[in-house]
């Protein structure tokens, strides 16, 4: 029998229904792979007993011919999603051994569709980072290595555990969250597909908040079709999240394979940033050529406020984070370091509980919201945000169906390479992705090639609000042209 872990979700789904193998067999294959892949650091908690119980229940349903959309498909869950009875930490010491009594809406949707939970996946602490190096559980290793070089590379972040686990066949698909690029950048770094849906497409209820106006959950998968299958289950309106959208969830999978003939693809000139590596430039040109060949119309467009997106993002996101993280005070749950009085207890608990990057962002956020600075920073950043949104609206009004850009300014880098010095160097990783969060639009990263060192590179497609279908449609064309990229296993 072929390695079940290498099957796509679509194939596994069809073969489970055809009874070619059982959900239990599929789950056992993943549990074995997880054990062998522990050195990658993708999982912070494995839940084999839960996985086996869920797989057994799936087998019973499949036997009765009552399989649901994701029946028996083993998934990993980013540790930002609260999972009932299963430790959830956001990979921060401050949450200690917090075990929620509730299940996030997104994961509840997945289980309601028959998916099997394998465990909790590593991420940057509170999703703050672009390399998964800020996790309290330590870094995650990218399954990809440079040719002839055994040094460990980062998988990107913040959803680094999710990206590595999917890329290294430690789960069939995974949940991620994306506040500034935390799904798309790691997907690009590990050669897989990741989509950040439109803000409001998926409920945020039960997901540990980083920046409420930017956070959005989305799936990681090894193919465009698999990502489309997963998103259908992720998405829902939720009365518990008033920012979730009350609109029907389309059959995304049906969009996969549709022709892009006559579609208008916008190429924003402002994304041709100074010092962009030639390989990224070439990848982008290649993507344009593929879409042109598939019958799409290529149109150069202007998104003039792009250059302000990253600085504005690093005001809005920390501002919201500084407030969202105030609840971690050592009083009701999580870590408490007793002090002499209440203020001392706060200070000791939060100093011990939060890592350096989280502390930095709390301080930035507190500063930009302070009296006398609020108008100069927060209010201006919100104005910039409106302008960025307007840039995209004008492009879409002019007939553009989707925008094509590189996903990242480089391929994966080495662990420790960028985490020591200037934090801005790390922040620049998100230069192509933050605009999408600021505008609340959907964006997908799809693998498009390898660089000269053999590392995967991705392209990003940005769509109209709630038009994820177009993204899957166009991404499939790129996937068909570029082919699949898999790391050569060296672990285990």
């Amino acid at each position, binding site marked *: 029998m072929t390695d079940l872990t290498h099957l796509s979700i679509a194939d596994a789904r069809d073969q489970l229904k055809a009874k070619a193998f059982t959900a239990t067999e599929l789950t056992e294959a993943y549990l074995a792979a997880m054990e062998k892949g522990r050195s990658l650091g993708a999982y912070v908690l494995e839940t084999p007993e839960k996985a086996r119980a869920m797989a057994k229940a799936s087998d019973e349903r499949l036997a009765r011919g009552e399989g649901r959309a994701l029946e028996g498909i083993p998934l990993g869950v980013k540790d930002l*999603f*609260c999972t009932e009875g299963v430790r*959830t930490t*956001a990979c921060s010491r401050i*949450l200690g051994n*917090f075990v*929620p*009594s*509730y299940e*996030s809406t997104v994961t509840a949707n997945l289980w309601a569709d028959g998916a099997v939970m394998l465990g909790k996946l590593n991420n940057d602490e509170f999703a703050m980072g672009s390399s998964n190096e800020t996790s309290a559980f330590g870094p995650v290793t990218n399954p990809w290595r440079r040719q002839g070089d055994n040094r460990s590379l980062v998988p990107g972040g913040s959803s680094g555990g999710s990206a590595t686990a999917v890329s290294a066949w430690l789960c069939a698909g995974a949940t991620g969250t994306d506040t500034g690029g935390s799904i798309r950048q790691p997907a690009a770094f590990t050669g897989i597909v990741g989509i950040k849906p439109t803000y409001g497409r998926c409920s*945020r*209820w*039960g*997901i*540990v*908040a980083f*920046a*409420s*106006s930017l956070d959005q959950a989305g799936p990681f998968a090894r193919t465009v079709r698999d990502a489309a299958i997963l998103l259908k289950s992720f998405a829902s309106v939720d*009365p*518990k*999240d*008033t*920012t979730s959208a009350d609109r029907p969830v389309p059959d995304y999978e049906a969009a996969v394979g549709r022709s892009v003939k006559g579609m208008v693809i916008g190429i924003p000139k402002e994304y041709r940033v100074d010092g962009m590596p030639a390989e990224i430039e070439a990848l982008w040109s290649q993507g344009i050529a593929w879409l042109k060949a598939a019958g799409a119309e290529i149109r150069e467009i202007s998104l003039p406020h792009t250059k302000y997106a990253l600085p504005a993002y690093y005001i809005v996101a920390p*501002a*919201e984070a*500084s*407030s969202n*993280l*105030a*609840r971690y*005070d050592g*009083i*009701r*749950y999580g870590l408490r370091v007793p002090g002499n009085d*209440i*203020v001392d207890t*706060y200070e000791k608990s939060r100093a011990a509980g939060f890592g350096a990057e989280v502390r930095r962002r709390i301080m930035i956020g*507190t500063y930009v*919201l*302070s*009296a006398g600075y*609020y108008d100069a920073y*927060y209010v201006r950043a919100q104005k910039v945000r409106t302008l960025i949104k307007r840039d995209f609206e004008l492009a879409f009004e002019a007939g553009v169906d989707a925008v094509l850009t590189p996903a990242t300014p480089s391929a994966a880098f080495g662990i420790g390479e960028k985490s020591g010095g200037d934090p801005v160097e790390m922040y620049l990783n998100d230069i192509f992705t933050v605009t999408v969060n600021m505008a609340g639009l959907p964006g997908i990263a799809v693998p498009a090639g390898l660089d000269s060192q053999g590392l995967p590179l991705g392209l990003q497609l940005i769509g109209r609000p709630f038009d994820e279908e177009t993204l899957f449609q166009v991404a499939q064309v790129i996937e068909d042209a570029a082919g699949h990229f898999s790391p050569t296993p060296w672990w285990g």
Partner: protein
Amino acid sequence: MNAVVRTAKPSQLIRGATGDWEIVIGLEVHAQVNSEAKLFSGASTTFGNDPNSNVSLVDAAMPGMLPVINVECVRQAVRTGLGLKAAINRRSIFDRKNYFYPDLPQGYQISQYKNPIVGEGRILIDMPDGETIEVGVERLHLEQDAGKSIHDQSPVYSFVDLNRSGVALMEIVSKPDLRSSEEAKAYVSKLRTILRYLGTCDGDMEKGNLRADVNVSVHKPGTPFGTRCEIKNVNSIRFIGQAIEYEARRQIGIVEDGGTIVQETRLFDPGKGETRSMRSKEEAHDYRYFPDPDLLPLEFSQDFVDALAAHLPELPDEKKARFVRDYGVTPYDAMVLTLERASADYFEAVAKGRDAKAAANWVINELFGRLNKEGKGIEASPVSADQLGAIVDLIGDSTISGKIAKDLFEIVWAEGGDPRAIVETRGLKQVTDTGAIEAACDAVIAANPDKVQQAKAKPTMIGWFVGQVMKQTGGKANPQAVNDMLKGKLGIE
């Protein structure tokens, strides 16, 4: 509105060593919204449950929890705005007010900062001297209450009860239009009356469901306002008056001694009757307000407002005007009768089809007087409107005298029963039998020849004779009939 700054009357000024001082007062009243559930969670708002039993995941600020607006609280705020004749803002924004405290689980209070749900309005207050004052309302906004910190249960730890955490409050901010402690007390009292009429807040100050932050400053009339101090969380109308009186004199004392007032937050100590510093402006929190990204702007249609307006009850001012117009009672009596909706309803039940002035007299003087004496509310009155109406009827048709009526009221108060039946069974009926009255009159005249002589010279002496006859008849004789008969017999015109 209130473009002209109100000036105090000379009698309201405080005399200092350097001249007269005017007090300027503004109030921020926190009124707990009457609602089953909290502002952003489904947890119950029931008072008096075991600590931490009315707490949802949202109230405890568990990771990943999100607030969802309770539409009933929005309705209550709009109703209140309409009752205050205020502008209703169909788009308002919830902001986060950030600060750390153990009874504030989120680390921020969700409130409304720049865009409140209700804008400018007004409240009319009736002063005892008959003057009616219009006080401006600056705004009304919705916000979450905090939990309760308990410091006296353990020598080492403080305890926190989150039952109150997240309960909806309306903060109603007045303009600095008040010029005396009496006005401030009348304002809170009237606001409380309006809220209770509307059913949007029960106004129970003992439970802390209505409390006020009192801003006080002093200045010489005609000069700019002085620096204000804010007295936090005063929870009775009497204390509000005491706090203002103390604080104004404290500030005058400082300024007259050559000092300056420091803007600060103060606390009122009811035991000592004084205010003391809580924190200065320098120690004040920087709340870092910003729009709550978990909540969309609160928007509703004009239809939503109109539907609430259509079902608003008659409010105290309108009711008072109607009582004056329809029942002919004095404006002051009308004000007293309309302080509570239940009292007004009681009065109307008594006055219906009867002499309204007599009804008002009985409700205000006898019933309210007695209820106040016993510390009872109108709902707990032992005498029903039907019973009191029957007593008024018995006087009206001369079955009993006013004096007997008071005795009858006491009997009904203590024992209950149908007043007409009591009059029958206990023989309280007025004696209108001319023969019996005449016999009594003759007896009194015969026994007091000297007084008879005096009365001829001084006709007012007749009162003494009436009293004697009433005494003889056990108060049951009709006083008018006695009076008439004595006049004839004594030859007084």
